[in-house]
């Protein structure tokens, strides 16, 4: 299973000394599929690799550098758009790690710009974004209404000139989730890193990442999330993290993330049966970069909906989406 080869290499980069050409092909395909090729390239810096691998890794580093540069520019544009509204730009996830120069940001793939805004400031933020050139991506009224009523973010916006997306969050989990993190506390304790940019406190960064990975979604891109968590963990005091996670109602998720990070990227940990299922899902990728263990993957897809919605609401949602022609991949 090549996702296993990928995580073994991230844990112990020197182990690539034992790879043959087939092993390299599997490693590169899995890393690209998990969007960890930039991270892998950084981990392999200074380690001898076969000559055809050198330009592949150099390309990955260059792509990651460009993405980081673009992400920081988007963050800058966001600060500019919010100027005068009194709403701070609190960065989440990839852009936050890169802006703060954290290890989790090295080589990281960055898609959209994610920011956190106080809920009562959402209308002001939305208006400011529209005035600065962002537009709705999803014209579908059902999706729009769904986002506004039940989600933790505005429907995604895309900038009409730069073609980059922004997700404006007011908390870190959907409103339909069982857990209700204290977004106001996260905003109050955010750390200023530059003139106009803030990121979450070290504890909240981990809690957000763990919530995103384990209390929401179907674990697509989970290996990348877990790598973030693994890199962020040394920055916090374990007791402070536990206390903070308890406050947000996410202690179990944070503990599970710690166990998985240690088991997959670190020195190992005792895993529960449920941990093992999650690990099996995370490593479901073969040497061609294809997803395998289809039933398990589908199980987690179903679970992601279960997490987000009570049963009747889920039934109504699936019926609406089905009629609109949506099918699970």
């Amino acid at each position, binding site marked *: 299973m090549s996702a296993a080869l990928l995580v073994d290499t991230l844990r112990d980069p020197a182990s690539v000394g034992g790879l043959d050409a087939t092993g390299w092909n599997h490693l590169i395909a899995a890393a690209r599929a998990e969007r960890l090729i930039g991270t892998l390239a950084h981990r392999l810096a200074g380690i001898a690799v076969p000559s055809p691998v050198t330009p592949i890794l150099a390309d990955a580093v260059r*792509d990651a550098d460009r993405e980081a540069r673009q992400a920081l520019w988007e963050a800058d544009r966001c600060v500019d758009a919010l100027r005068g509204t009194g709403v701070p730009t609190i960065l989440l996830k990839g852009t936050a790690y890169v802006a703060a120069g954290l290890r989790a940001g090295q080589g990281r793939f960055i898609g959209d710009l994610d920011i956190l805004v106080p809920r009562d400031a959402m209308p002001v933020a939305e208006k400011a974004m529209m005035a600065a050139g962002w537009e709705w991506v999803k014209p579908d009224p059902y999706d729009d209404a769904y986002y506004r009523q039940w989600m933790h973010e505005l429907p995604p916006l895309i900038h009409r000139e730069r073609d980059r997306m922004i997700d404006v969050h007011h908390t870190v989990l959907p409103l339909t989730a069982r857990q209700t993190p204290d977004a106001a506390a996260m905003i109050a304790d955010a750390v200023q890193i530059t003139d106009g940019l803030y990121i979450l406190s070290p504890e909240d960064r981990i809690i957000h990442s763990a919530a995103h990975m384990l209390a929401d979604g179907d674990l697509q891109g989970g290996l990348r999330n877990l790598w973030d968590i693994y890199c962020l963990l040394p920055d916090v005091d374990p007791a402070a993290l536990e206390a903070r996670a308890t406050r947000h109602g996410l202690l179990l998720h944070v503990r599970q993330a710690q166990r998985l990070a240690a088991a997959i990227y670190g020195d190992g940990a005792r895993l529960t049966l449920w941990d093992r299922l999650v690990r099996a899902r995370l490593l479901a990728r073969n040497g061609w970069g294809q997803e395998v263990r289809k039933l398990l993957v589908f199980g987690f897809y179903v679970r992601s909906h279960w997490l987000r919605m009570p049963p009747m609401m889920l039934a109504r949602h699936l019926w609406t989406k089905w009629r609109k022609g949506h099918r699970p991949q």
Partner: protein
Amino acid sequence: MRHDLTLRIGPATFRIGSAWAGPIDQLARLYAAYPQVEGAIADFTVRLQPTSLARRWVRPSIFITGDHGLADAAPMSLSHGLLAAEMGMNLQMALGWRRHLLLHASSVEKDGRVLVMTGESGSGKSTLAALLGERGWRFMGDEFALLDLDSGAILPFPRLVSLKNRAIDVVEDAVGDVRMGPMLRATAKGDIRHMVPRADAVARMDEGGKPALLLFPRFGPDTDIRAVGQGEIFMRLTQASTNYVALGEPGFAALTRFVQSVPARAIDFPSGEAAFEMVDRLWGEVA
């Protein structure tokens, strides 16, 4: 994947996996004269996989993907498997290649100097390059011309030439049946047949040349030669490049140098003969 093949074309190595034997067998036959790189470390992985579980056997339908893919790529019939494999390789180059500026253009070489032809699909650039390759020029590529960021040279990417509709008969007559792939009828772009480049194009696929002339060909009823301003050339080439933005400043610098140093003309031609005459004349006068 059940069936696979590794191919090198110019500077790029592809590992192509398929759920079916057919596309791989056809590739193996048509690329037989290319460097044998079985088991090499590949730059890109291409996958031809069933669009769903049942579509492996029942009305087989190919989803083209790989390291780089498009979620909304149109499914293709297994009878067009060779085209799917070619499109899969093109997709990897278009979305993932970073080592040169990629120009959507055909190119041919003579005396170390390169003629680059760019235009929309249907402009005749593939057909012209294929035919010039049979008339004393070395064929370098019909889809991508690779502009070296440091030296400014054009490097070859001589994959199979993809011929469409009326161009098929014209080229078939010139090169003979042995170097032609299977006829693929009624694809999304009409009938398509692939042509194997001449042996010299394959043997010299690592050898670049200095760009000497840029043409914007257009197949149609008129005969005309027009000058094109540098600003327009620059804009058209940025649109004809899939990685111009990704390369950032080095891409801008390389393209600027290309536009400023390579003479360019737009040509309208009603027939192959008319085009050859114009190319010969411009090659002598302008290049």
